């Protein structure tokens, strides 16, 4: 195979820099694999490792610091057949930590080469996430008081399926890189090297010292048995194929005339867990069965099953513009927290406005008519009271009628929920 190194862009690393050696070895790995340039995407990070994409006649993407894995993820998901190789320094590994964890967890078939030379070469030799505490670097004493990170241990615990820690001077590095690229899953190579421009000026770091240091660490070499599992992209496509297409939202035909003319506004005031939003949906569907335009605005706290839950509905034969509500035709008041949240609503109500009030809930004084219902006595549970209140509205021919409500339930629910909802609506006693 031909050499993929870019003849018009010669390597520009400092004399003795390990990056140069790794670039040449990576090219040999590509050649050994018989790959053409267009079968490879080099995604490079920032810093000296960020120059890698320019040295190869391959597809290339170079972006912001620490984010190379994010672009690689998009590329690989969109082009599963591409060999996507990411080069990143110990700096990019540190700032992009969340992306490394996520790549390990996903196991998308990317190859990450961490060109680990223990400092930020390009910006002046500052300490990185891998700088030993006893090193002399460009960040004064700061590296002395932090602990370096072992990316291999992190990768293994985050679920990477292939992890190797090695020296840039390792004899079979070209075979090891090939094994990592051929591995179907996320592979991480933590390749230790010498930064002659910065780091090794003040710190004794030679190929021999690297070997000695690596020998003292637990070995990390290749496949991580405990993490073995499906490759993300293949798995994603497999699961996707079994997903049913989502049909467009149901279209509701006009079948009825509404009991009242003009724009009708309704507010349902309740507590979280009372199915207030679902009741709002159903009221909207009921409006659609009468050919009305509808809007639904909901309000609830960030706490999921605590706090008020409010649904504001407008049903109108005209286009609905502004959809704030201050003079509703009807209020459903079935939960104290919702009522309290909108306490200032009541004193301005028109005298022909109707409040469906659950016994036990207190509303502020006002002009509106109150229709009190003792849901407890009727055996209607708190989470059914919103729907039961719609039944009260329908039976009173306020805003909706029983046919609209029944048709809305048929549109909104499937069996067995439909039968139980229809049963509930039927048995509500409005007296």
């Amino acid at each position: 195979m031909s050499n993929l190194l870019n003849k018009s862009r010669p390597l520009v690393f400092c004399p003795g820099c390990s990056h140069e050696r790794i670039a040449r070895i990576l090219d040999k790995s590509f050649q050994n694999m018989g790959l053409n340039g267009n079968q490879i995407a080099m995604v490079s990070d920032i810093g000296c490792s960020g120059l890698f994409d320019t040295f190869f006649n391959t597809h290339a993407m170079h972006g912001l610091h620490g984010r190379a894995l994010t672009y690689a993820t998009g590329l690989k998901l969109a082009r599963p057949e591409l060999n996507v190789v990411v080069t990143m320094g110990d700096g990019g590994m540190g700032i992009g930590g969340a992306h490394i964890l996520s790549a390990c967890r996903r196991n998308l078939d990317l190859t990450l080469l961490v060109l680990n030379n223990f400092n930020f070469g390009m910006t002046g030799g500052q300490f990185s996430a891998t700088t030993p505490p006893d090193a002399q670097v460009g960040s004064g004493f700061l590296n002395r008081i932090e602990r370096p990170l072992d990316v291999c241990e992190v990768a293994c615990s985050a679920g990477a399926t292939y992890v190797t820690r090695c020296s840039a001077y390792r004899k079979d590095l070209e075979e090891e890189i090939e094994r990592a690229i051929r591995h179907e899953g996320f592979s991480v190579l933590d390749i230790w090297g010498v930064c002659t421009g910065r780091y090794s000026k003040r710190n004794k770091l030679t190929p021999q010292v690297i070997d000695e240091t690596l020998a003292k660490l637990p070995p990390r070499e290749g496949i991580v048995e405990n993490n073995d599992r499906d490759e993300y992209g293949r798995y994603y496509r497999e699961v996707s194929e079994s997903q049913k297409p989502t049909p467009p939202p149901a279209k509701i035909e006009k079948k009825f005339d509404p009991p009242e003319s003009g724009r009708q506004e309704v507010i349902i005031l309740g507590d979280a867990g009372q199915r207030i939003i679902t009741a709002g949906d159903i009221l909207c569907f009921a409006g659609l069965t009468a050919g009305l335009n509808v809007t639904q605005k909901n309000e609830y706290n960030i706490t999921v099953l605590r706090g008020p839950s409010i649904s504001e509905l407008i049903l109108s034969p005209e286009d609905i513009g502004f959809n704030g509500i201050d003079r509703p035709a009807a209020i459903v008041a079935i939960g104290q927290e919702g009522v309290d949240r909108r306490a200032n609503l009541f004193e301005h109500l028109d005298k022909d406005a109707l409040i469906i009030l659950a016994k036990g809930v207190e509303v502020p004084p006002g002009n509106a008519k109150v229709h009190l219902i003792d849901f407890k006595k009727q055996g209607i549970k708190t989470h059914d009271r919103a729907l039961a209140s719609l039944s009260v509205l329908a039976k009173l021919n306020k805003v909706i009628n029983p046919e609209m409500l029944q048709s809305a339930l048929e549109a909104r629910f499937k069996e067995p929920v439909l039968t139980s909802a229809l049963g509930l609506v039927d048995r509500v006693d409005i007296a």
Partner: protein
Amino acid sequence: MPLSLMEGNEAIAWGAVNAGCRFYAGYPITPATTIFNTMLKLLPPMGGICIQGEDEIASIGSCLGASMAGLKVMTATSGPGLSLYSEHISFAIGSEIPIVIVVVQRLGPSTGSATRGADGDIQFMRWGSSGGLPVIVLAPVDINDCFSLTMHAFNLAEEFRCPVFIASNKEIAMTKESIDMDAIPRPELKERAAPPPGKPFLPFEIGSDRMAPCFLPIGDEVLVRQTSSTHGPDGYITTDFDQIGKNQERLRKKIVSAVDSFSFCEAYMEDDADTLVITYGVTARAAKEAFMDQKGEGKPVSLLVLKTIWPVPEDLIKKKAKSFKHVVVVEMNLGQYVREIQRILPDKKIHFFGQMNGKLITPHQIKEAIANV
């Protein structure tokens, strides 16, 4: 005609897939999350991809990768996530990567009110990325706009190879409305231009008849280079001042000079009025009601609803405002877009009404603002 019920966010998702979007990545944040939920239902069964990024940076980053691989891509967030998008927005601008970014605004600053509506990120979308180059921002008023402007946004992203924002608002995004999706006019779909045959491909070469470079995807036969560094036509970093300057100017001009071709708006002009109300987004709904009331009361005003916010459709605004003495700008913040109106209409009396308390601006408040002119 039969109607469906859905949220503004769902309409954006449906608009996106109808425009050919096949890759979505997002991070959960109210009030944008239901776009993600809907895309997750829609995309995988049609062979598309929808993923949840580990954060907003990763979400938009993977979109940029997928876009460079040739897919139409979208992401969505709210203010706190928009902050995190910043570095990748500037990547998409400078390196001409098509992407649609939905910003469902909620009341800030910072984590702010989870979750109340506001239009507090209008200037942030324009200026919140390094380099200060222009972007395209479209602002929907209602659910129909959510669907159709999203389709337009994809077309603009493809045509100009740039990020295009949808400036939505919790009050549109999470409000359910009746909609007849089939009745909404759909623009003809545009695709990024392939290079003319017979010439070696340079990823950032600009043909004499073009403002944006032709596109080939990463992963096809011809090698493609993409870089966030300031680059020449070959996609390699350049230090040539002349080349750098010309390219920056082109990136500005390709967006700003084209705005007349996509100045979406609604204009309600009254002959006898001396006041023009200018607004955008959900506030336009109250403004329309105020407009009708004023007309009914024999005190007509005119109304201009802007749906293209950035670049500022200056010609449109100057033309529409020409015969008016007073201009009232109403927006759901403490005064952001009014600065643009003041800038381009220096001879008019510009009045402002804004509110940022989590409540919708009402027709009554707008009428009061008009009365105070």
